[in-house]
């Protein structure tokens, strides 16, 4: 990556060369409080994160959990109440958005309505004082990258929503920022366009090598697009990890519940070892379970385990768990079977619909449940 063309970080354009290759953005115990006194609201509460150079990093969480606030702190539109924020190794506290090597793709695109598509894309470079020829060639390259060459002279009001989205991307990428921030950029698009733009975003990220920080509350989008995900709730980060880690080894009840369908079971913890734990299921079967990151709960206590529906299958009455079928819901390629376990808790599993599988079990019939190896994930309590 040509570092000389990177936008300035603070006063000294070359100051970022001291950064470690790992931490493109390093956030330490960052908090943001809105208002004061009785009406004070803690939108971010001691958030710590390290985002690596060149990765596609996603902030995932329900509405109001502080995703936009975190993004606005990184971009410089808001100043943190406490904590540290380093971009490319440089502390950016107190720097305005125009002094940070970070660009934003706004949710409503925020294209300048009085400028052509090309002038929108070249705006950042013009503000950086680049020469006209350089601005023009960079604009042309960006237009090609987002496949908008034919519409370069149109105004934003004269192109479609999907095209505006591409222009907003090109405008933010043109100055070659260290980090691109995207706040739910796809939420205004219909499903088909959304799928298209998802792969478009991945392609752009691969071609430019720029670190993407992507905000969404759509768990499927997060799982399919990200290198790593941070799951947030109520101003805190609950878990950070690859999509597989987050999905298969949720550390927290909220994370497990927020991502994918989940079964929770209250079980007895028999023993804890370095490799894993052994637990006793309600039916009496003792099975190994994966431990969550962090301090393990004490043996003998009552803990919660997570079982994904696809890790369980119907078996004869001799499975690890047993229960009664309540109802089956047909979903095309598979059927969701809702069961009531003998201890009273509910359980859902997925059954592939194939000619060999035969018909779904009738409501009221007793069935056993077999669990795949490694299906049990212990939660942090």
């Amino acid at each position, binding site marked *: 990556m040509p570092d000389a063309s990177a936008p300035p970080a603070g006063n000294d354009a070359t100051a970022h060369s001291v950064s470690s290759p790992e931490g493109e953005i390093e956030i330490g115990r960052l908090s943001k409080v809105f208002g004061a006194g009785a009406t004070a609201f803690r939108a971010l509460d001691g958030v710590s994160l390290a985002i690596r150079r060149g990765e596609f990093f996603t902030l995932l969480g329900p509405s109001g959990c502080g995703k936009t606030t975190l993004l606005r702190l990184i971009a410089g539109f808001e100043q943190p109440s406490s904590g540290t924020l380093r971009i490319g190794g440089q502390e950016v506290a107190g720097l305005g958005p*125009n002094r940070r090597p970070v660009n934003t793709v706004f949710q409503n695109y925020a294209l*300048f309505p009085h400028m052509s598509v090309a002038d929108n894309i070249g705006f950042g470079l013009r*503000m950086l004082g680049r020469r006209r020829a350089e601005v023009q060639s960079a604009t042309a390259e960006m237009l090609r990258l987002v496949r908008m060459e034919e519409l370069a002279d149109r105004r934003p009001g004269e192109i479609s929503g999907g095209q505006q989205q591409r222009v907003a991307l090109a405008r933010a990428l043109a100055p070659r920022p260290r980090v691109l921030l995207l706040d739910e950029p796809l939420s205004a698009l219909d499903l088909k366009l959304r799928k298209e733009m998802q792969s478009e975003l991945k392609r752009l990220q691969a071609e430019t090598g720029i670190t993407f920080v992507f905000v969404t509350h759509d768990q499927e989008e997060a799982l399919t697009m990200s290198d790593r995900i941070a799951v947030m709730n109520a101003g805190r980060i609950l878990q950070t990890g690859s999509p597989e880690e987050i999905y298969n080894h949720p550390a927290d009840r909220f994370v497990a519940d927020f991502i994918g369908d989940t079964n929770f079971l209250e079980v007895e913890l028999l023993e804890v070892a370095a490799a894993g734990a052994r637990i006793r299921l309600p039916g009496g079967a003792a099975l190994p379970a994966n431990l969550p990151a962090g301090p393990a709960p004490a043996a003998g206590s009552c803990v919660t385990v997570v079982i994904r529906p696809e890790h369980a299958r119907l078996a004869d009455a001799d499975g690890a768990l047993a229960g009664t079928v309540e109802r089956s819901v047909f979903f095309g390629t598979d059927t969701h079977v809702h069961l009531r376990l003998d201890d009273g808790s509910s359980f859902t599993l997925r059954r592939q619909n194939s000619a060999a599988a035969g018909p779904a079990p009738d409501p009221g019939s007793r069935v056993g449940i077999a669990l795949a190896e490694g299906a049990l994930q212990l939660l942090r309590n």
Partner: protein
Amino acid sequence: MARTGFSITRLPGFGAIAIATFLMLYIPILTLVVFSFNAQASMSQWGGFSLQWYEAAYNNRQVRDVSIRSLWLAVVASGIATAVATLAALGTTRTSRFPGQTMIYALINQPLMVPEIVTGVALLIFFAAIKVQTGYTGMGYLVAAHTAFCIPFAYLPIKARLETMDLTLERAAADLYATSFQAFRHITLPLLMPGILAGFMLGFVISLDTVVITEFVKSAGQDTLPTYMLGQLRRQVTPEMNAIATLFLLLSLCAVTVFFLLSRKRA
């Protein structure tokens, strides 16, 4: 629409009142315009079509002088007022709410609330003292008085436009390395331009039209078109006045039309 609902248009006499109101509004003006083309020197008897009163007005040195003075004053006063109003509008919409903000609105809009005659008398006394002290008797007093009077009229359309403007545009500019001045210069100002022009046109029409304040503030030989017309009417009335008034009306209509076109235009 609900068929059984209350509708003001179906009250008895609604149509008649509307028509009567329009007649009362426009018949006097129509009469004035029609008699400006009268071949006779009468305001009540029609003696055939003629452009002689327009010719007379055109050849009247005094009419030309006061017209030019009125236009000059309106352009200068409205220009200054628009610049001040733009800053005031930015200051009251682009900052977080501060204590005393309502007070500031009241202060900016003072000319809308204080009766013109009070302002006129106050300015007369105040400027008289300054004239005695400095000996200056130029157009400065009229410019100052008209500017102050025009500010709220210029302020309102500019503020309205700023309030509907998408704030994320300025944020996006800052994100793309624009300093606050560059963001203003390249984003806010171009998008605000229709509001600024509308504010200018409104101030222009107000300045052109105001009689009371001018009457109190002007020194000898500083008549504007309205005060000149008022002075003439006290002596003798010929259709020449009608011709001047018709031209004046035309000018105002043009300015107001431009104002409407600009304020309707959306970015």
